[in-house]
């Protein structure tokens, strides 16, 4: 069950450079990357760092979210704040990295939501409780969903390690 408030709305083609600027690339640890999430969006970054945004809050995006480079920091910095990203669609490598890191994502090609709207996932439908409208979501391939359900590739691999290798 997912439910939360939209804390930020962004447009199409938001690149990894906007999510995690290249000048912080030398910082790699998932425990350290969250401080630089949307570093060039000073107000949003400040709110994130001040922990004013509760876990489970929602970022709404347009098409091709996470395009650009393959840097994993772009996914780990959002995961660190436990944000949920709802986008019309995601760039391929970002999607893969986000699945691996256990970042919650919802692919919703027709989503209509503004900042402060309350969204709720109801089966295969995303409901905007503020406007009363609902939108179908696209589910991920089963094999990938299993990784998300496990909380990311680290816990998923840990489970396989314990089950398969003795």
């Amino acid at each position, binding site marked *: 069950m997912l439910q939360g408030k939209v804390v930020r709305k962004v447009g199409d083609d938001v690149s990894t450079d906007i999510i995690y600027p290249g000048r912080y690339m030398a910082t*790699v640890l998932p425990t350290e990357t969250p401080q630089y999430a949307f570093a060039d969006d000073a107000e949003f970054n400040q709110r994130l760092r001040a922990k004013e945004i509760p876990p489970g809050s929602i970022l709404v995006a347009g098409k091709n979210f996470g395009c650009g480079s393959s840097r994993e920091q772009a996914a780990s910095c959002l995961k660190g704040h436990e944000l949920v990203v709802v986008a019309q669609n995601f760039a391929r490598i970002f999607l893969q990295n986000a699945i691996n890191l256990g970042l919650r994502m919802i692919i919703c090609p027709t989503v209509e939501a503004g900042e402060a709207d309350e969204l709720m996932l109801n089966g295969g439908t995303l409901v905007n409780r503020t406007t009363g409208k609902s939108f179908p979501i696209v589910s991920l391939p089963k094999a*990938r969903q299993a*990784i998300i359900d496990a909380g990311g590739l680290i816990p998923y691999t840990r489970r396989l390690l314990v089950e398969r290798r003795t």
Partner: protein
Amino acid sequence: MGMTYVQKLLARAVGKREVAVGDVLEPPVDLAMSHENAALVLNQFLEIYQGTGREARVWDPSRIAIIFDHRVPAESSKTASNQKKVREFVASQGIAKFHDIRGDIGGICHQILPENGYVRPGAVVVGTDRHTTTHGALGAFAFGIGATEMASVWTLGRILNVEVPATLKVVVNGAFRDDVYPKDLILYLIGRISAEGANFKVIEFHGPAIRSMPTSGRLVLCNMSVEAGATGGVVPPDAETLRYLGEEAGVREHVETFAPDPDALYDQVIEIEAGSLPPQIACPHTVDNVKPVDAVKGTRVHQIVVGSCTNGRLDDIEVAARILKGRKVAAGTRLLVFPASWRIYHEAMDRGYLRDLMDAGAVVCNPGCGPRLGVHQGALGDGETALATTNRNFKGRMGNPAGEVYLSSPAVAAASALTGVISDPREAH
């Protein structure tokens, strides 16, 4: 139904007679490569083992390769500390395919793997670097993955959730004209199909111009396939592959090869006449903004870079040395040369190429990714323009968002170094 090269490779890897495009597989990994980002892989790897009560051991130390090449020698204490951590891990796990910062066995990962015979036809190769596609030149299915995925590979020895990709077949007929090289071909192809033209697909190279191309050129094609969005590039192995492995990579044991089925189903087939291609240039700020050299001839360049994992091999340095021998780099232009490995550096030194280049005014740097990323040496000044034989020219790629980067073959780069403006190598003789 016949299978493409990579379909067949993946079917063999998982022990099936047939796999279809879109099937999700977990093939065993033959080689897992990382560079400095092994430090992040290591962090994720240790986290996987946390709370399991097991000692963290990689699945097979002989199948892991780690090469320091992105920031060598270390440019900061942060990098040096990461390299130290990785060095200690390599020793504790017994990882033998480790190439530290050394003037004998060091170099850029995408040259170290082929020249040491680490990559074989039919292998599944993964690397924490986009340009891991390079190794398709030897008939491997090679592609880039994230650091967390690599940590999972180190643990399980398998790569999870690989979708069998569709294949784009590129047939290159005829022969190249003088002063035209594999780099011109791949730039032309990327310009023609765009940076998204091969998304999710493998590019499989065929035709007489490929059959007669040495492995050094095939490495260029596969290196840059990813710039057309491809998951991988591949040249089905042939007599040249076996020659390279035996003569240049020191492989003594028998190497098995196979070919795609004649009735394989391709997503698309593109034919190119090699003899029709002039030298090509990728213009700022995207790799698919490609024009014939004539269209940008005369553009002033301040810095020229010959080298990198794309074009830092012996024949690349030879071409540059031949053009520059007995002549001078134009005043106001600087020429940086980065051989792809120390083995190449030594050979270029023995053959006098480095002396010819230095006498002309070139600065020969140590093998490494250097200015390609803009993280280390060779940054551009505000408003400066560079011409490089590397593989990407995005804004800020050479360490300065106010600089412009053009991409070309080593021949165009050397001819331009003589004049200080983008020049046609056919006019530099």
